[in-house]
């Protein structure tokens, strides 16, 4: 993306035309750079979901649009674009951390009634051995998240300190682990 003679440098011509108000050139430019932006974001944010990646891609596109006047046609386009992507990624990470700090993690409480049919199947006591096996089969990071948060019942902050990962990464790992456990245990019940 940053090599002086890479194809992306030809996009500088499109941006120059876009600065002059050429909508067709701008459309071509944005359509060309979007997959590259998406690729960079996926590489940098390996744990991000599709929606989060697209959110960041759109942030970058809007930023490119906002500051298109700062592009100097005499300079290569690649470093200009990459600088915006990097800074928006950092902004995105800060925003994510800010939201994570404000969030209060609450597990879904299952209400148990005396009538068995009123209870959902989550509140039933399942097969402990199957659950144990399913947890063991999880990838290392997800297993650790489950053990710290669900079995040892640590807070997110405590679990992050113990595991040496971020709160955000723990949340993602927990979410994925729970989905995997539901899939595994659901299959077994069927």
């Amino acid at each position, binding site marked *: 993306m940053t090599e002086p003679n890479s194809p992306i440098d030809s996009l500088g011509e499109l941006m120059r035309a876009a600065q002059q*108000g050429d909508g067709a050139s*701008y*459309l071509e430019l944005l359509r060309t750079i979007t997959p590259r932006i998406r690729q960079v974001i996926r590489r940098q944010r390996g744990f991000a979901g599709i929606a989060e990646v697209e959110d960041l891609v*759109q942030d970058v596109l*809007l930023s490119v*649009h*906002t500051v298109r*006047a700062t*592009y100097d046609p005499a300079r290569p386009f690649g470093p200009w674009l990459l600088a915006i992507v990097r*800074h928006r990624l950092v902004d995105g990470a800060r925003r994510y951390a800010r939201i994570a700090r404000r969030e209060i993690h609450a597990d879904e409480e299952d209400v148990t009634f005396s009538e068995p049919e009123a209870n959902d199947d989550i509140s039933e006591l399942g097969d402990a051995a199957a659950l144990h096996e399913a947890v063991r089969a999880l990838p290392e990071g997800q297993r650790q998240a489950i053990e710290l948060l669900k079995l040892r019942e640590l807070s997110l902050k405590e679990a992050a300190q113990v595991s040496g990962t971020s709160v955000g990464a723990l949340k993602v790992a927990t979410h994925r682990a729970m989905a995997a456990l539901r899939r595994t245990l659901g299959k077994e019940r069927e």
Partner: protein
Amino acid sequence: MNTNDLIDNLAAGLEPVAPLWPPGKRAAAWSLGAALYVSLLVIGMSSGGTGTDGAGAMFWVPQIAAIVTGLVASAAAFASVVPGLPKQSRAWAAAAALVWLGTLVVASPGDVDWATVPVASHEWICVGVIVVGGAPLMLALMLMLRHGAPLSPATTAALAALAVGTLANVGACLSLPHANGAITFAWHGGVVLALVVVAAVSGSLVFAWPARSRSNDGFTRNGR
């Protein structure tokens, strides 16, 4: 809105924009205006005598260092809002600021009584000149910088404050008599440092990407 729709919308609503001047050229334009403004400030304030009466190298060297710091810092501030430019200019600005402070220390008399420096109450006038007198310069610089990309708001704001503070400090030094370099070092240096810190802390309030409305994916600030 999905990404393809966003792209179509951005292209459909495209308006021509004039590419910004290179950072050096923009810094030169602002510095020229700043020089004129500081000159008028000095002329306006020094009707009863200036701080340059009988001044020698010990006075002028710090002033030259301050001017150089202001110019380098303004160039670095303008460079900091252009994506993809090298960041060395920021280091040059920091180095220039240290040299300026160093010249003030060197200009301090050897037998200076540092205990009297903090109680030099007449220096509050200089503080006023630097802060209030520098405000129009800061406003102009901020407005110019906001046309760029808010990549590093704290750094940009700190560099802007350094540029304004050092040039306004020259105005204060030229228009008001000063006892010695130690007082200038402590008071002027302190004020400029405080301005830099305040600007760095509040930089994100001034330089920010336009907020995105999640409902329509449009911008809701700055009219962008």
